[in-house]
């Protein structure tokens, strides 16, 4: 139980660090002077001490939606697979529930965008609705395929099963599912090539457009939500598709896990440096690839058993 709580706390503390790490790594790769990797914490504490400015056009949704954006993600943190062998984990929550919780968070984020009556908010919500509608089928199919290889749909149990018995005999379908999930990781977290988290240009904004009217604590909450979401996806990817290092002693296992999270962050950063953001209407092509890989994974599993 102590390990369980420790892991959650460590992951929560790590959340802003990972995004700042991506940012500074990107800057370093582009020969810019990188920002500190602790910038995320600095922003957070700065925003907490600021006053909140609320638009006069807004309603109760703006008052409560930020909390409802964050809380499903925080709840999801409790359901992630264990990092260390023997640690407590919630075995009963399955992948559909986690997908649903993430959608719930997105749902309130989209309402938040529409609440301030600004054209930017509506634009962001509209684009996010479009992208997340296409993410949903790929997500469910990938989850379906992974659950069969892991022998359980429960996320915690699936992580444990995969660590105990890596599905060497299903390597092909496992790989396809992994590719699909990684594309979903990029799409759900608004990374390049789906969305650019650093721009504030109306042509390219998706996530940023929805939260353009937020300041202070509300902005801090939403920023935390997006970093927590990244941690959730990264740790799901790590526990389901890179399930090694789980059996080591507790501190080492946690260290290996964190190292893997940074590895994922590094891959994301390198991808971001090397690709351009896709036009909104090209995004379905990328997500279509994810859907096709998810299907391929299922079909190879069924037909070839590989």
């Amino acid at each position, binding site marked *: 139980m102590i390990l369980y709580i420790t892991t959650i706390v460590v992951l929560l503390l790590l959340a802003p660090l990972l995004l700042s790490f991506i940012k500074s790594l990107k800057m370093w790769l582009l020969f810019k002077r990188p920002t500190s990797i602790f910038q995320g914490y600095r922003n957070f504490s700065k925003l907490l001490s600021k*006053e909140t400015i609320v638009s006069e056009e807004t309603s109760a949704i703006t008052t409560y939606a930020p909390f409802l954006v*964050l809380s499903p993600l*925080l709840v999801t943190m409790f359901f992630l697979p264990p990092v260390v062998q023997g640690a407590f984990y919630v075995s009963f929550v399955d992948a559909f529930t986690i997908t649903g919780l993430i959608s719930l968070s997105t749902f309130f984020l989209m309402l938040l965008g529409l*609440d301030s009556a600004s054209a930017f908010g509506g634009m962001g919500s509209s*684009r996010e609705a479009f992208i997340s509608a*296409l993410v949903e089928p790929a997500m*469910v199919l990938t989850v379906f395929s992974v659950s069969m290889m892991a022998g359980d749909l429960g996320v915690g149990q699936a992580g444990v099963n995969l660590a105990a018995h890596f599905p060497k005999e299903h390597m092909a379908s496992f790989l396809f599912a992994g590719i699909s999930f990684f594309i979903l990781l990029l799409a759900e977290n608004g990374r390049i090539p789906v969305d650019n988290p650093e721009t504030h240009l109306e042509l390219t904004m998706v996530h940023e457009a929805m939260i353009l009217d937020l300041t202070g604590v509300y902005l801090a909450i939403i920023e935390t939500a997006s970093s927590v979401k990244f941690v959730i996806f990264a740790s799901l990817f790590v526990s389901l598709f890179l399930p090694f290092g789980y059996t080591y002693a507790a501190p080492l296992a946690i260290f290996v896990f964190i190292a893997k999270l940074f590895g994922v962050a590094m891959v994301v950063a390198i991808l971001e440096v090397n690709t351009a953001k896709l036009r909104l209407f090209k995004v379905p092509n990328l997500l279509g690839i994810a859907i096709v890989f998810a299907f391929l994974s299922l079909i190879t599993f069924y037909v070839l058993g590989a």
Partner: protein
Amino acid sequence: MFLFDTLSLIFVALILLGTIPNLFYSFGYLSHIERKRHYLLHYFTFIFSMLGVVTAGNALVFLFFWEVMSLTSWQLILTEVEDKETIKAARFYFIMTHFGFVFLLLFFLIATDGNIDMHFVDMQGIVALFPYPTLLFFMLVFGFLSKAGAVPFHVWLPYAHPAAPSPVSALMSGVMLKVALYGFARFLFDVLYPWPLEWGIVILVIGSISSLVGVLYALSEHDIKALLANHSIENIGIILIGFGMGMIFDSLHLETLSTFAFIAAFFHIFNHMSFKSLLFMGAGSVLHQTHTKNIEHYGGLIKSMPLTAFTFLLASISISALPPSNGFLSEWMIFQSMLGSYNISDTSLKLAIPFAIFALAMTGGLAIACFVKAYGISFLGLHRSDNAKHAHEVNFLMKTGMVLMALVVMSLMLFTPFYIGWFDKMLISLHHVSVYDKMFPDGFWHMHSVAVHGGVVSPLILLASLLGVTLLLVFAYKVLDVKKRVYHTWGCGYKTTAKTQYSATGFAGPIRRFFNWLYKSDEHFHKEKIMEHETKFSDAHYEVHVKPLFETSLYVNSKKLINLVSYWVYRLAHFEQTRYAAMIFNLMLLVLFSYRIFFHAFSWATFVLESIVMIISIKVLIIGDKK
């Protein structure tokens, strides 16, 4: 005469849950209706006829109440005859419902062997001797699913539901469609059992297509009630996916999975009844206050109608299948039952199921988009028209109706095991195995799937943890005691007005563009340019209309065909006597030639020669010159 088994009683419960809140709402709405006596008479007859349909014990009583239900709902659509559209919608509904009725009548005539007041149970013996059971199955599909609104018989819904007064739309969409599904289930289980594998696949395919088509047309719709009607098509599709999976598992002798899938379908029937009624009530309240159905003219209603906005939000979360709502739970069960396709040994069937999963997941994603649109554009932002500015909260009775229906939604979410216990008992009475103990092996906290690698969901724990974490966050926010300042929305230095917000058309824009191959949308763009500049204009107007594919391809074209045939029949009836003589001559020629072909030697040369003679003689003598 009447039958009160578990299946009937469950649907009686469904009708009661759907109508009691509706009664309050309806009485609150009554001041809005001019022909009160006409309305009340048909309203109550409608409710009683639905109760009659689900408790009918023989074909005659069933058909009687079915027809009363159709006719009263048809009259209810005609309550507010203000424009021609309503009359057109009512006529369309009348034709569609009788289209189904014909097939039902045929089904009963065959299944009862003409003895139409026979008990349902006795029909099984007659059907077992009937050589073409698939014919009977398709009669059920045509008869009941045309009433339930599955593709391709869904076309009447987006016309009929908006035309009816809102309490009636809530009843029609929430309850009447389910009564049709009751009929479908009743005769499949009682009369046509056992089912071949193909029937289940047919239902699964109809369900998948309906769910996608429904949600896609809902997205492009701007009339709030038509949007909700399209969502009914979607949800009927989801129910049919569950139903189809149940049938497939049953014919493959996977009994527990079959029961599980059927429970999922019946649970979704209840859920859809609850949230769709609530949504129609909310839409009705908004319509009552703003006098328009176009969501582009709403906006900002959450400030003036907080209760309506809150109940609408609850229902939106539920219909979008977001946890921990009841809509999520039933959709979760349907997903789980599809996960059970792992146990199917037939590889091609196994490979087909992921496509249904794809359809269902896509539907879920698009439904979220659609309800963000419906909720965000109607209730959030600035008032988009003067009508919306003058709206205020509806009267007490209507509020009571909405709150009661919200309680029904909540009860379905909180007491899931209780409802599932009902469905389980019902399926036991229909000779299926019980899965209740497998689904709730350790109390009511966790709901297990019966699929092999299935998951677990714990609705109450989810709800409690979500509420707990949210309250904790709100509490932390209060403790921080943040200074709050009210300022206007940032609009690049320009003023934020109702016109600068995103519209519903704009919101659905990316999705409409992506699915343009289906929508074939008709765009009208007009702007008053200043000095012939492309980018400077004083006034602009953009409108987009989506062509309903099924309506144009199936209905309008068949209408054209019928018109063509009737034109020729008309021509035939108005010939002169010489023409009739010519026709008789041609018929004689035809008989002689056919006699020679069929009963004597056949040779292509004479066949061609005779055909040419026939064609020339028909052309010259009968058709004559074109005038």
